C-alpha cells in the first residue's frame, strides 16, 4: 500500500517540541561570534523632507559601534534605471521596487513616506544599548501633508513622488465603461465594498544576521525563498557566487517574507561595510508598522441579471492602496481582476484597477494575495443580487456555477480554469451543515424577535495557485552509500510540513523508509537554484520535482541493478515495500539501496531536476459559516464553520487539514476583527499587539472539514495548492453570515471587520431608516 494519502505525523516536530526551533535570533554560528546588534532609526512622521540627521549624541553612548545613514552607502552601485512595467504586465516573481520615478531607497535619503520607514541603522554591542542610542539620533523633518487614505491619494493634492506628478502608480484591467451590458436586466445592484488593510503578522517577525568574511557575504534571514533573497542581495554589488543565503527555521511568512525587505538588505550591507557580523531582529512595533501588509482595496461593483436568478453582467472597479512604495501591491489587483467572476459563468465581466500610493506601510502578498479580494467581493455581490431578486443565495450560486462538464473553462477575464466540480463541494457543505434545519432555526429566532439572531453565510470560491507555474521548482536526490537519501529542494518550509511531505514522496517511489530520507532546503551553497514558497506552489511544483527526481534516481538505480545482476534492465524490479531490488520472478536474490549506491565506482547515485508546469491550477471549494449576532451589543459569535476545500488528491491529510485550519482562521480574522488603521496624519493606530486585534482561540470554533478531491492533469501528482484556499473561502463566508443574521432588520452590508461597533451601528442605522420611511408614508 502506498504511503501517499495516509495520515503521517510530522518528522519536523520532535525537535521543535523539545529544543525549540532555530530561528535567526537563536543562531549561535561561529561566524556570528561578536556580532553587533542593529537597531533602526525609523521615521516618526508619515510624510516629510529630512532636513538633517545628527548622530553625535548617539555616538557618545556606551557600546555604540556606528550610526549609518544613506550618505554612508557610497559602496553600493546605483541601481540600473528601471522601466515601468506595462499596465497589463503579469505579476512579478519577486516583490521588487518598481524603480524609476517610484524608486524605494534602502535607507531614506531626502524624504520619508511612512511612519516606520528606516532612516538610519545603529550598531551596538547589545540590544538594550541599541534602543538607547537610536532614541538619541536626532532627525529633523520638514513635515508635508500626509496622504492617509485612498481618497487623499486620488485627490493628488499632496504627491508622494513629485517626479511622477500623481499618486496613481498603475492602471490596468479591462474597459469598464460599457454600461449597455446592464440594459434591460430585471435586477441590478450596485455598491461599494472595502477589503481592509491587514497585517500578515507571522509570529516571528523579520530577522536577519549577516557576516562578511574572505570576500563572501553570508546572510541568515527569515525568508520564504533563500535563492530569490540572494538575487535581491546582488544589488549590493556582489555576484551571486559571493553571497550565501540561509533560511534557518522560519516562524511563519504568509507572503510577507517573500525575498528580503530593504531592512534586511541594509543589515547585510552593514556587515560588509563595517566588516563586523551584524544581527537584527525586529520588534513587534517594527513588524506592525514596517513589514509589508496585505489587502487594502476598495471596490465598486455592479451586478445584474434576470428575476429568476441568472447573472448576466458583473463589473468590478478596484482601487488598490499600495502604501508608500509600489512593490508587489502594484500588481496584486491584476490577480483580483483575473479572478473577478469567481465560480460563475457570467456572460459579461468587466474589471479594472487603479493603484495609488499613500503614506502607509507598503502592501505586498498576504495569504491569498489579490485573490481573496476577488472572492470576498463576488460572494458579497451574489448575496446582494440574491436578496434583490428574492432568491435563496444557495439557489443563485447553483444556477450560475460553471458546470462540471464545462471544464477546462476560460473565464471572461481570461483565467484558464483546469478542473472543478463546484456544485458537489457546495452540496457536501450544505448536507453536513443541515442547511434546511439552519434556515428553519433562523426563521424561528426571527419570528420570536430573539436578541441573538442566527446568520448563515455561504461562499463558493475558486482561486489560482502556482500562478508562475512556468518558473517551476528544483529538486535533487542523492542516495548515499549507507542506503539513506537526501532531498535538496528549492522550495522552502516555514511550517507547512515540506520535510514530511517530500520524504513521503521519496518513500513512495523508492521504498526507502521515511526515517532514512533527509530533506534540506534554504541554503544557496547547497541549492543554488530554487524558487521557494509562495502562491500555494510547493507541493504541485516542488513536490512534483521531488517525484520526478525520484523516478530518475530509480531509473539510474535500475541500470546499476541490472548490471550487478547481469540481467536486462527491463527484468529488474524494485519492491517498494522493502526497498529491495530483484530480478522479476526471483525474490530470493536481492540488492539493497546501499549496495546499488556503492556500485559504479564511487559515482554518486543522484538526480537533479527542475519541474515546470505549463499553467496554474485552480483549487476551489465551498464554506458555510454559522454566526450568532447579539443585536443589542453587536457582538458576533462564530458557532460553526463547515468547509469542503478541493485541491485534488490528498498527499497527507494531517498537513492538508493544518493548512486549511490556519487558512480559515486568517480568513475569519479579516471578516471579524483584524484591521490596520492610520489616523488622518498617517500615524499608525495599530502598532502593537495590544492594539491590533489578532484573532485568538476564544473567537473561533473548531472547524468541520469535508473531503473533496478533484485532480488536475497539470502535474504528475494531480495536485493543486491548499495553502491559501482556506483564507480565500472563509472571509466571505463569515462576513456573509454576519450580514445574513441582520438581513431581516434591513441591514444590507457591513464592511469588514464586522466589529461589535460596526454591527451595532448598522442595526441602528437600519432601524432609523425604517422609522423615517414609516413616517414619510
Amino acid at each position, binding site marked *: 500500500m502506498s504511503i501517499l494519502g495516509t495520515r503521517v*505525523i*510530522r518528522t*519536523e*516536530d*520532535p525537535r*521543535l*517540541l*523539545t*529544543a*525549540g*526551533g*532555530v*530561528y535567526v*535570533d*537563536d543562531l*549561535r554560528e561561529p561566524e556570528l561570534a561578536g556580532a553587533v546588534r542593529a537597531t533602526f532609526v525609523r521615521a516618526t512622521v508619515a510624510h516629510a523632507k529630512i532636513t538633517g540627521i545628527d548622530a553625535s549624541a548617539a555616538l557618545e553612548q556606551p557600546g555604540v559601534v556606528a550610526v549609518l545613514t544613506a550618505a554612508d552607502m557610497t559602496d553600493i552601485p546605483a541601481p540600473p534605471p528601471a522601466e515601468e512595467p506595462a499596465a497589463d504586465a503579469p505579476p512579478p516573481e519577486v516583490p521588487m521596487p518598481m524603480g524609476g520615478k517610484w524608486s524605494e531607497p534602502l535607507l531614506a535619503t531626502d524624504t520619508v513616506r511612512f511612519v516606520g520607514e528606516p532612516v538610519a541603522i545603529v550598531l551596538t554591542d547589545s*540590544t*538594550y544599548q541599541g534602543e538607547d542610542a537610536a532614541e538619541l539620533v536626532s532627525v529633523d523633518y520638514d513635515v508635508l501633508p500626509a496622504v492617509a487614505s485612498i481618497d487623499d491619494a486620488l485627490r493628488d493634492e499632496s504627491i508622494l513622488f513629485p517626479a511622477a506628478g500623481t499618486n496613481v502608480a498603475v492602471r490596468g484591467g479591462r474597459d469598464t465603461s460599457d454600461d449597455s451590458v446592464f440594459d434591460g436586466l430585471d435586477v441590478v445592484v450596485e455598491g461599494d465594498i472595502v477589503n481592509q488593510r491587514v497585517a500578515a*503578522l*507571522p*509570529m*516571528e517577525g523579520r530577522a536577519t544576521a549577516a557576516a562578511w568574511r574572505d570576500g563572501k557575504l553570508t546572510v541568515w534571514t527569515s525568508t520564504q525563498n533563500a535563492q530569490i533573497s540572494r538575487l535581491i542581495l546582488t544589488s549590493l554589488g556582489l555576484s551571486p557566487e559571493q553571497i550565501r543565503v540561509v533560511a534557518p*527555521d*522560519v*516562524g*511563519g511568512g*504568509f507572503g510577507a517574507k517573500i525575498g528580503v525587505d530593504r531592512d534586511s538588505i541594509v543589515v547585510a550591507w552593514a556587515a560588509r561595510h563595517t566588516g563586523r557580523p551584524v544581527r537584527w*531582529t525586529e*520588534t*513587534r*512595533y517594527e513588524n506592525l508598522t514596517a513589514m509589508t501588509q496585505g489587502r487594502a482595496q476598495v471596490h465598486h461593483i455592479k451586478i445584474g441579471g434576470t428575476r429568476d436568478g441568472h447573472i448576466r453582467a458583473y463589473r468590478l472597479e478596484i482601487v488598490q492602496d499600495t502604501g508608500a512604495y509600489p512593490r508587489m501591491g502594484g500588481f496584486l489587483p491584476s490577480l483580483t481582476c483575473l479572478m473577478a467572476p469567481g465560480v460563475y459563468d457570467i456572460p459579461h465581466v468587466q474589471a479594472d484597477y487603479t493603484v495609488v500610493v499613500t503614506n502607509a506601510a507598503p502592501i505586498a502578498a498576504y495569504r491569498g494575495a489579490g485573490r481573496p479580494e476577488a472572492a470576498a467581493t463576488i460572494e458579497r455581490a451574489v448575496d446582494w443580487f440574491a436578496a434583490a431578486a428574492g432568491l435563496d443565495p444557495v439557489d443563485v450560486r447553483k444556477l450560475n456555477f460553471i458546470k462540471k462538464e464545462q471544464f477546462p473553462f476560460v473565464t471572461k477575464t481570461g483565467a484558464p480554469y483546469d478542473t472543478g466540480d463546484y456544485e458537489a463541494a457546495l452540496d457536501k457543505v450544505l448536507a453536513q451543515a443541515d442547511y434546511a434545519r439552519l434556515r428553519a432555526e433562523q426563521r424561528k429566532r426571527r419570528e420570536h424577535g430573539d436578541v441573538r439572531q442566527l446568520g448563515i453565510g455561504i461562499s463558493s470560491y475558486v482561486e489560482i495557485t502556482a500562478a508562475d507555474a512556468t518558473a517551476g521548482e528544483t529538486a535533487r536526490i542523492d542516495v548515499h552509500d549507507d542506503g539513506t537519501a537526501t532531498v535538496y529542494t528549492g522550495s522552502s518550509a*516555514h*511550517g*507547512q*510540513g515540506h520535510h514530511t511531505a517530500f520524504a513521503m514522496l521519496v518513500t513512495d517511489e523508492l521504498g526507502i523508509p521515511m526515517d532514512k530520507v533527509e530533506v534540506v532546503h534554504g541554503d544557496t551553497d547547497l541549492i543554488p537554484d530554487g524558487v521557494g514558497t509562495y502562491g500555494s506552489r510547493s507541493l504541485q511544483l516542488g513536490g512534483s520535482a521531488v517525484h520526478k527526481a525520484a523516478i530518475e534516481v530509480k531509473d539510474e538505480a535500475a541500470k546499476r541493478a541490472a548490471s550487478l545482476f547481469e540481467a536486462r534492465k527491463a527484468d529488474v524490479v524494485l519492491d517498494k515495500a522493502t526497498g529491495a531490488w530483484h530480478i522479476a520472478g526471483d525474490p530470493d536474490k536481492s540488492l539493497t539501496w546501499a549496495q546499488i549506491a556503492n556500485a559504479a565506482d564511487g559515482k554518486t547515485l543522484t538526480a537533479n531536476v527542475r519541474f515546470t508546469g505549463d499553467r496554474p491550477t485552480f483549487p476551489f471549494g465551498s464554506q458555510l459559516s454559522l454566526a450568532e449576532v447579539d443585536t443589542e451589543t453587536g457582538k458576533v459569535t462564530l458557532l460553526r464553520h463547515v468547509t469542503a476545500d478541493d485541491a485534488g488528491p490528498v498527499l497527507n491529510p*494531517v*498537513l492538508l*487539514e*493544518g493548512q486549511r*485550519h*490556519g*487558512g*480559515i*482562521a*486568517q480568513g475569519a480574522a479579516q471578516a471579524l476583527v483584524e484591521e490596520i488603521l492610520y489616523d488622518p496624519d498617517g500615524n499608525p493606530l495599530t502598532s*502593537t*499587539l*495590544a492594539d491590533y486585534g*489578532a484573532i*485568538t*482561540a*476564544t473567537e*473561533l470554533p*473548531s*472547524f468541520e472539514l469535508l473531503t473533496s478531491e478533484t485532480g488536475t492533469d497539470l502535474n504528475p501528482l494531480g495536485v493543486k495548492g491548499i495553502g491559501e484556499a*482556506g483564507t480565500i473561502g472563509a472571509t466571505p463566508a463569515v462576513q456573509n453570515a454576519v450580514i445574513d443574521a441582520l438581513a431581516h432588520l434591513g441591514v444590507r452590508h457591513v464592511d469588514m471587520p464586522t466589529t461589535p461597533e460596526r454591527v451595532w451601528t448598522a442595526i441602528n442605522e437600519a432601524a432609523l431608516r425604517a422609522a423615517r420611511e414609516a413616517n414619510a408614508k
Partner: protein
Amino acid sequence: MKVELTVNGKEFTADVEDRTLLVHLLRDAANLTATNIGCETTSCGACTVLLDGESVKSCTVLAAQADGREVTTLEGLAGDDGEMHPVQRAFHQEHGLQCGYCTPGMVMAIVSLLQENPSPSEADVRQGLEGNICRCTGYHNIVRAALSAAAATKGAGK
C-alpha cells in the same frame, strides 16, 4: 546586579543589567533559546515560561523578579530520559504546531492550564489560551492537543 535562580532544575547565576527581562536572561545569558519573543506587550504568549510552577510571560518579568525562584522552560519539560511530556506528545500526535514559533509558549501555557484544571472543556481550553497567539494552526489542533493531553494524563493516573 547578580541574580540567582533555578532554571530547569539547575542553579543558574548571572550578572545582568537591572532592566534585564527574564526572557533575555534565559535566551542570552542561559542560552536557552526555545523561549521566543513575539511582542513586547504581554499580548502573544510566545515567551510563556513557568515561574514557580505558574505560567508567566517572560517578556514582562524582570530577571530580578525571578531571583531566588524556579523557572521551567520548554527545554526542561521532557523527562531525564528524553521522553516527551504528555503535552509535547499530544502536540506531535495532533499536529498542534506548524512553524513552531508560538509552540514553546503554547506548550507551557497548556501545562499550566492542565495543572489548574485537569479536565477542561473545549471552551475552558479556548478561554485559557486567549493570551497565546498562533498564526498557523487556527488553534484547532492546539485545542485538540490540550484536550488529548488532559485525557492521556488522566488515563495514566497522573
